[in-house]
């Protein structure tokens, strides 16, 4: 992400929403980055998990447009390793949820080929749809 942060007023409405949905106090984070160091998928992400937390701390809604929450596989490595006990996995879930509640789907079920669908185990399909669609 480029550009500067213009911090006129931290968007507290947005932060409040995140806190309500996630139950996570993001302000406790001192940005050590251990969540990112622990994340097995960090190479695939556009911003690091700690940067995701940072954007939420700043009330910056651009975080909703990043790929990171959608790359997350909810493996809880970040949560388990955070020295401050911040549940980053829950935070990512809240970010996904806020998008999904606007009826945005991140996986197009009809684009998966029939052959693929027959081969994939239901456990993979259902969990993916739970994380990436608004309808399930």
């Amino acid at each position: 992400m480029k550009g500067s942060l213009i911090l006129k007023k931290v968007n507290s409405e947005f932060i409040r929403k995140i806190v309500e949905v996630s139950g996570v106090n993001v302000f406790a984070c001192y940005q050590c980055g251990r969540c990112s160091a622990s994340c097995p998928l960090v190479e695939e992400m556009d911003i690091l998990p700690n940067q995701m937390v940072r954007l939420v701390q700043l009330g910056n809604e651009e975080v909703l447009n990043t790929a990171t929450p959608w790359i997350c596989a909810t493996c809880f490595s970040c949560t388990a390793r955070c020295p401050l006990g911040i549940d980053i996995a829950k935070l990512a879930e809240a970010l996904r949820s806020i998008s999904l509640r606007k009826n945005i789907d991140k996986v197009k079920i009809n684009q998966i080929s029939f052959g693929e669908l027959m081969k994939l185990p239901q456990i993979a399909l259902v969990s993916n749809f739970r994380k990436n669609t608004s309808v399930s």
Partner: protein
Amino acid sequence: MRVGVFVCHCGRNIAGTLNIEKIKEEVAKHSGVVHVEDYIFMCSDPGQKLIRDRIKEKNLDAVVVSACSPSLHEKTFRNNAASVGLNPYKVEIANIREWASWPHEGKPEEATEKAIKIIKATVEKVKSNIPLEPLSVPVTRKVLVIGGGIAGIQASLDIANAGLEVYLVEKKPSIGGKMAQFSETFPTLDCPQCIETPKMTEVANHPNIHLYAYSEVVDVSGFVGNFKVKVKRKATYVDWNKCTGCSECAKVCPVKVSSEYDVGVSQRKAIYIMFPQAVPNKATIDPEHCLRLVYGKGCGLCAKTCPAGAINFEQKEKIEEIDVGAIIVATGFDVMDPSLLTEYGGGKYKDVISALQFERILAPSGPTGGKVVRPSDGKEPKTVVFVQCAGSRDPEHYMPYCSKVCCMYTAKQALLYKHAVPNGHAYVFYIDVRTDGKGYEEFYERVLREAEATYLRGKVAEIYKEDGKLKVLGVDTLTGKGVEINADLVVLATAAVPSEGIKELAKVLRIQTDEYGWLKEAHLKLRPLETATSGIFIAGAAQFIRDITDTVSHASGAAAKALSLLSRNRIEREPLVAEVNEEICSGCGNCVEACTYQAIKIDPETNIAKINTALCEGCGACQASCPSAAIQLTNSYKKQLFEMISILAKE
């Protein structure tokens, strides 16, 4: 009884909410009150003079000052009364500011009612107060210093140089502490051998210092000015009066043990001198490993070799009793065991070491002669990763606090490493670099330039072995990228933790520790050198991890505290202690059980409780346990409490 009540306005602080006239009117009606007067500032000079004048004019034999909290001006008003001959214990404070006017600003009527109740209850108390004189007790003008690191050394020297006797008790065979293990010290790169060893020698030769090395404090009784201390002098199995420190014994000893001084980087023998500059420079036998002591027979090579005939396998530990007036606890700190850090492979991989171990490897006089080699194969590491905050700033898994000294010593180690291995490279993982000391920031900048160390801002997640290297998984939050480094050696800046055994020692001393074991000071901001037990002071890192500069300052401060306490031959104590009504006491012994200070004994002849006022701290636990009100706390008599309760409990 002629009680005078003085009501302070405290400007508008009291008078702005409370109805002073109403108070005066109501209090004047109370039995025993012969005079009520108000003034804008009772604590001012004219206010105090007013009280003095009325005591004389009205012949008052007790005074209640209705003003602010007793913790602010109780002493002021008591001294004031004493100056015109009224016993200070016949003055009591009724707190109508913090407890009535301030917290009930919006309810003036109710607040005034409450204030009147408080004043009346205080009048009832003061009426039954008896005049008292402070207890004056002689003091032993000697000091016990526990712990012989740089803090204990500094405190001992300061006190001894002021002319008082010091007992310095160290549990290891030599003084010197952690500082003696360091390679060089930040930010000046002095070697501790050059700056600490002379002080150690001075301790050994000082006529006022009794050095008890390889000894432990096992019992403390008594109180400020008069402590009785039992010191266990552990058996060294070497007659230190004969031992010359020639080390011939260690050369022939067949048993090798991991060296505590070198933190496992080298080995010592079962008979050993801790390090070449040890003070006292005497040999000690480790009974857990000495073949002769373990099996009770055989070996004895050291005894055969010792030219001084100093070896004595029959030596027994001794308990020695000493009397002191003050105690300074200088027990220092330890570093967290790296094997607790499982995610970093601590204790699992030989080349994942603690920073203290790396100090020994870097030390010019250390086991490797200053050559930087790694423990697993003795090879020179070309890539070294330093992990800061290993176990610190991590309330979820380890210690919540910042260990304060790691940023600086890591920078120092990175520099010394670069000096030793010019073609090597150091990586430092940090969260924040904290350089809060004189010359520290400049030193850090020097390290960045001179050591060309790569500082990476991020906390390491995990370390494991892969293809013969230590794979360090971290992050650089500044570029927003994950980091993988294949390292030859990993140095963990493990958290500082309270020294081993401190909780047990604190129990012996009757002082408190926090949840981790750091000693608790009487007040974090204003009394950081004192414990809540008077006469016991803290020096150095035993209170909390601090660097050498701060430790030495802290230790000198503690020494000054002890010296000021012992500057006179007698000290005064509050006379508010328990007393026994011998007529009523049945000798049931409940009070003996209730007393935490062992200040009460049942006299076997009379079967009556006897109080050692020297030991009594005046808590009153005995009074609450006595079934017949035979034991009572001076000026907190049952009668007084009953009168106060009946005033306060009524609508």
